[in-house]
């Protein structure tokens, strides 16, 4: 591995701590999202895909962490820390959150790896979001909906993947760009597009 490649792979302290801080921020966001959800949920009752939309916000930290930090493992690290913080703050699923976090972030990590951690465009972000949705679907079907007939499983998965593509994929890409424009990403290569 040449020197340039080593620079790409090696995690600096700032990479580690900012990835974890993004996860901590999402600990706050998840908590607030729960409150907002309770307030607007009645509106969405007649519109079941909203369920997927709600779930998708849990998939954001992994994709976003990957897009901002641009290091191998960033997606998994970010999503795992976010899940751990949610568990420590007191979640009804406890440490099971960590298992879900892993299931939700392996997919996006694979997508970033396939592009050798060199491509960070909207297409890659959407792919990562979709894979996060797929991982989340598999996790949900195993833990919660194991007796459903295949047709139902496929429909549920399709809805989650679509909303994950929009919220976690395109949404994370939009957030990364907005953060770069606001000058918040100066320590990272993602600041320069």
């Amino acid at each position, binding site marked *: 591995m040449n020197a340039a490649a080593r620079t790409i792979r090696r*995690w600096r302290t700032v990479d580690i701590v900012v990835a*974890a*801080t993004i996860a901590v921020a999402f600990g*706050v966001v998840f908590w607030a999202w729960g409150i907002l959800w309770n307030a607007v949920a009645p509106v969405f009752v007649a519109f079941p895909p909203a369920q997927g939309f709600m779930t998708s916000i849990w998939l954001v930290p992994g994709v976003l962490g990957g897009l901002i930090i641009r290091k191998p493992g960033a997606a998994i690290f970010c999503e795992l820390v976010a899940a751990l913080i949610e568990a420590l703050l007191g*979640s009804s699923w406890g*440490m099971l959150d960590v298992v879900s976090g892993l299931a939700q972030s392996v997919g996006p990590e694979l997508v970033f790896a396939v592009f050798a951690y060199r491509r960070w465009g909207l297409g890659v972000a959407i792919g990562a979001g979709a894979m996060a949705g797929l991982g989340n679907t598999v996790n949900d079907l195993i833990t919660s*909906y*194991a007796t459903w007939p295949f047709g139902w499983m496929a429909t549920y998965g399709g809805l989650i993947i679509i909303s994950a593509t929009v919220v976690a994929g395109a949404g994370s890409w939009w957030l990364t760009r*907005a953060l770069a424009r606001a000058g*918040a990403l100066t320590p990272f290569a993602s600041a320069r597009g």
Partner: protein
Amino acid sequence: MIGTAPLARTDAWAARANPAAKLIATLVIAAALLVAIDPVTSGIVLAVELVLLPAGGLRPRALLRLGVPLLVGAVSLGVVNTIIGTGGVWGGLGLSVRLLAIAVPGIVTAASTDPTDLCDALVQRLHLPERFAVGALAALRLLPMLAAEWRTLSLARRARGLEAGRNPLAAVRIFAGKVFALLVRAIRAGTLLATAMDARGFGTGPRGRARTSVFRPGDYALMAGALILVTAAHLVSAGFGTWRVLFTG
């Protein structure tokens, strides 16, 4: 357990157990029960867990706050699977009980674990990468500041004349704007924290240990007990002829 309103008593058995041992026991139970979806296997595990629950030391308020949503979630899961699923009431019951059996030890582990102890245990007992574990622990210091910033962002939106009212679309748009502003603050704070850690020599060489994390006999008993419990549950259920594997009709 974060903040000064602990979810569990610190003198409880679970609070004194090694976090790595608790984590392993939790994951062993989860992995073993995910394979089987009949209510007997999970029911045996859940029954033992409930008998042992007092050792978790959960405070009544925490038990209520975490337990009620879990119960509601488990019951609705059972109903949904009964209606939609192919396994009928028995199948729905299986998934309900399985969820509870997996979640209960997870809640006890999370509620009774101090983040610093968890970090020490992950590094010293499970040999996870130290820079990452310590980096995550350090970032946790920013949680109160970021929570306060979220409240300030809400006040500031109102001050600027922004209010969602009953419009869910506006609510989501305002929410996204707040997420953006919170992330700006978080990334800047994280960068400063990383610099402060570098200034104190973080990551310049092998680290020493101010605290030691050890497995005591009780920790080994906990891990072994979890393994024995799930094995026994599977065998008993198989003996009754009720044992059913995931995704088999």
